[in-house]
C-alpha cells in the first residue's frame, strides 16, 4: 500500500505524520479538523465493528437454530491449548508494541513469537477438528457440530489474515519504513489480533454455555 501511494498520488511528505497521525495530505499551516483518534485507528475500529456483527450474526444463528438443545459432545482438550496459544499471542504483541515504543529493535523477535504462536494455534485447530471427526462428528452431523466447524473456520480465516498483517509489519521493518509508519502498522496489527483472540474466547464461552 505504501509503495502504491508513493507511485501514484501526491507525494506523502517524508516527515513524520502531524500530531493527529493522518495529515499526510496536508501541508504547511493547514490545520485539518479531526477527531482525537487518528484515521488508521478509526478505520481499524470501524472494520472490527463490522467483523463483530459478522460473528454476532453467526453466533445468534447458532443459538436460534439449536433452540435450547444442549451441546451433544465434549470440547476436545486441544481447544484449551488453542486458547492458551492465542492468549500468549496477545501478550507477545503487547510486548512487541512496548518494545517498539522504546525503540528497542528486539520487538521484531516478538513479532516472530506472535507468528509462531498463531501458527501453533492453527495446528491445534486442525487437531481439534480431527478429534471431532474421529468421534464421527462431521460438518453435517448435528447443528452443534455444523456451527462449531463454521465458527471455528471463519475464525481461522481471520487468523490467517492476522498472519498476513504480521508479515506486513516485518516487511515494513525490512524496507526500513519510518518509525511512525511502523508504529501504525504494528498498532493496527495488534488491535486486530486482540480482536481475533477475543472472538476466540467468545466462541469457547459460547460452546461452554450451550453445554451447560
Amino acid at each position, binding site marked *: 500500500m505504501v509503495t502504491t*501511494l508513493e507511485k501514484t498520488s501526491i507525494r506523502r511528505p517524508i516527515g513524520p505524520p502531524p500530531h493527529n497521525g493522518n495529515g499526510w495530505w496536508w501541508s504547511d499551516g493547514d490545520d485539518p479538523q479531526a477527531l482525537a483518534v487518528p484515521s488508521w485507528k*478509526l478505520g481499524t475500529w470501524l472494520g472490527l465493528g463490522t467483523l463483530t456483527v459478522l460473528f454476532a450474526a453467526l453466533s445468534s444463528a447458532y443459538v436460534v437454530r439449536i433452540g435450547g438443545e444442549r451441546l451433544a459432545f465434549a470440547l476436545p482438550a486441544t481447544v484449551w491449548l488453542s486458547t492458551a496459544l492465542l492468549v500468549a499471542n496477545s501478550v507477545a504483541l503487547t510486548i512487541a508494541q512496548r518494545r517498539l515504543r522504546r525503540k528497542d529493535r528486539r520487538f521484531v523477535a516478538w513479532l516472530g513469537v506472535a507468528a509462531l504462536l498463531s501458527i501453533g494455534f492453527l495446528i491445534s485447530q486442525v487437531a481439534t477438528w480431527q478429534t471431532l471427526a474421529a468421534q464421527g462428528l462431521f460438518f453435517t452431523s448435528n447443528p452443534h457440530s455444523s456451527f462449531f466447524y463454521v465458527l471455528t473456520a471463519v475464525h481461522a480465516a481471520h487468523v490467517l489474515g492476522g498472519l498476513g498483517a504480521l508479515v506486513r509489519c516485518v516487511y515494513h521493518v525490512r524496507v526500513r519504513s519510518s518509525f511512525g509508519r511502523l508504529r501504525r502498522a504494528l498498532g493496527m496489527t495488534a488491535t486486530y489480533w486482540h480482536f481475533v483472540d477475543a472472538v476466540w474466547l467468545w466462541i469457547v464461552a459460547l460452546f461452554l454455555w450451550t453445554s451447560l
Partner: protein
Amino acid sequence: METPNIAHAEAAVEAHHHEPQSFWTKYVFSQDHKVIAMQYMITALVMGFIGMVMSWLFRIQLAWPDHNLPFLRFLMPTNMESGTLQTPGYYMLVTMHGTIMIFFLLTAILTGGFGNFLIPLQVGARDMAFPFLNMLSYWFYFLSCVVVTISLFVSTGAASGGWTSYPPLSALAKATPGSGLGQDLWLVSIALFIVASTMGSLNYVTTALNMRAKGMTLMRMPLTVWGIIVAAVLGLFAFPALFAGAVLLLLDRHLGTSFFLPHLVLGGEHIVRDGGSPLLWQHLFWFLGHPEVYILILPAMGITSEILSNGARKPIFGYKVMVASLVAIAFLSFIVWGHHMFVSGMNPWLGFAFVITTLIIAIPSAIKTFNWLGTLWKGNIRFTTPMLYAIGFISTFVTGGLTGLFLGNSALDIPLHDTYFVVAHFHVVMGLSSVFGIFAGIYYWFPKMTGKMMSERWGKVHFWLTFIGSYGVFWTMHYLGFMGMPRRYYSYDSYQFLPPSMHTLQMIITISALIVGAAQFIFIVNFLGSWLRGKKAPDNPWQANSLEWQAPTPPPHGNWGPKLPEVHRWPYDYSVPGASADFVPQTVPVEVEPSGEHHSAAVAVNGHGHTNGHGNGHHA
C-alpha cells in the same frame, strides 16, 4: 520523530506535479476519489439500465399475457424462444430486477458514486483517508457486477427465488432452474458486493470524521455528507448479517448442512436434511434488508436537503434536527426488521413489539418532511431540474411513507402482505424516492463533475415524464393490492377473486412503465451529449455555498491546489439579510466573531452590512 518538517512545504508546492500520468493509473486503477466516483456512477447506471429493461419484459407479460413478440428474442435468448416470456424466465427477471436495482444500482451509486465524489470535496479534503482501499472497493464492486451479469447467461438461468432469496427455494438446486448455478453466482456476487461496500464505507466515515478542512466542524457539514456517512455506518453494521447468511446458505447448498433446510419432500423425493429453519434466513436477511432500504434513502434525503435549500434560496430549516433525525432513523432501522415477517407465524407479542418500533420511525421521518416543507415555505424558489427532482422526492417519500404506516400495523399487514400493495409501497418510498434523489444529484453536480452543463429544457421534459409516469405505475398498483392481487405470480388468469378490471389496471401500469422507460433515453442522451459538447460550466452555476463549488471545475487532482480551503460558516447561508448576494459561501469569513450559532453569525453579518460579498466577488 524522524525527518524535519521542510518536506511539508515542498509537498504543497509539488502538489500538481505528482498526478498519476499513465492511462492505467489515471483512469483505470485510479486512487483519485473523483475518478472512482465516476467509475462507480457509470457502472451503476449501466446496471440500472439492465434492470430497467428487465422490468419492461415482465411488465409486458403482466399486461398482455398472450403477447407474441418474437423480436424480443434478442433480449432474452432463452425463455422467450416462442416470442412469449416463459414462467422460469419471468421469475429470473423479477429476481434479478430487484437484486440489480437495490444493490448494484441504488446502493452503489449513492454511496460509491455520490459518497466518493462529494465527501472529500464537501468537507474540504484532498482525497479519501484510504485511497488504495477506495480503489479496491470499486474493483470488488466491478467484479460483483461481472459475476451477477455472468449469472444471467448460465444455461440453467439466473437466480429466481426473489431478491430476498428465501430458502428452501434458494437452497435446493432442484427447486427451480434458477436455483442451480444461478443462485450460487447470486450468493457469490452479493458476498463480493458486501466486501466492496464495507471497504468503501470505512473510507466514507473516516474521511468525513477525520479529514475535514479547518473550520469544518461536524455541525457545519452539508447534510449530504451526513446522509451518506450515516448510511455507510448502517452498511458497516448490517451487511455482515447477510454475509453470514450467504455463507450458511452456500454450505446448505453444497455441503449438506441443515441451517435453513428442514426435512422436505421435493418432487416425491425425500431431502435428507433435518431441523433447519427457513425463518432463520429471513431474520438474517431482514436484519440487513431493512437497514439496506435506509441505506438507499438517507443519502437521497441528504441530497434533497442540500438542493432544496439552494433552490429555495433559504437556509435549511432545522439543521440540527435534520442530523438528529437521520441518526434516529438509522438507529431505529436496526430494530424493526420483524415487520417483514408478520405472517411468518411469529408470536403476536413479538409482532406487537415490531409494530411499535416500526411506527416510531414515522416520527423522525415526519420531522424531516416538515423541515423540507419549512425550507420551501416562502422561499424564492428556482424551479431548476435538480430542484424539481428534489421536490419530487418529497412527494414520493410522503406517499410511500403513508402506505408504510398501513403495513406497519400487523393487523393490516396480514391481509396486505405479499400483495401489490407492498410492491407499490416500496417502489414509491424506496425506488422512486432514491431515484429522484439520484437524478436531483446528477443534474446538480454534473457541472462540477464534468465541467459541462446539462440541458435544462430536456432535463425538465425528463422530469415530468418520469414523475407522472412513475405515479401512473405505482399509484395504480395500490388498487391491485387492495384487490388482493398477490405479488410474484406469472399469470393471474385463473383467480376468481380478481375482477376483470384488473387487466385494465395492468395495462395502465405497463404503458406508464414504458413511457418512463422511454423518458430515460432523454436522460441518457442529455447526459452523454452534454458531457461531450455541453455548454461550459462556471465554477458555481447554482450559486451554492458548500465547499465543492469553491473548487475549480472540474476539480484537479488533490482538489484544492496548494492551499486547502478554510471554513467559516455553515453551508446554508442563503438570503442572509444585509448581505450583498443571496448566498454566502462557507469560505467567506465572518468578520464579527459570532457567539457560536449559525443564526447569530447571520445576525452579526447583518449588523455590519458591509462585511459580506467580497469573498464571492468572482462568482458575480
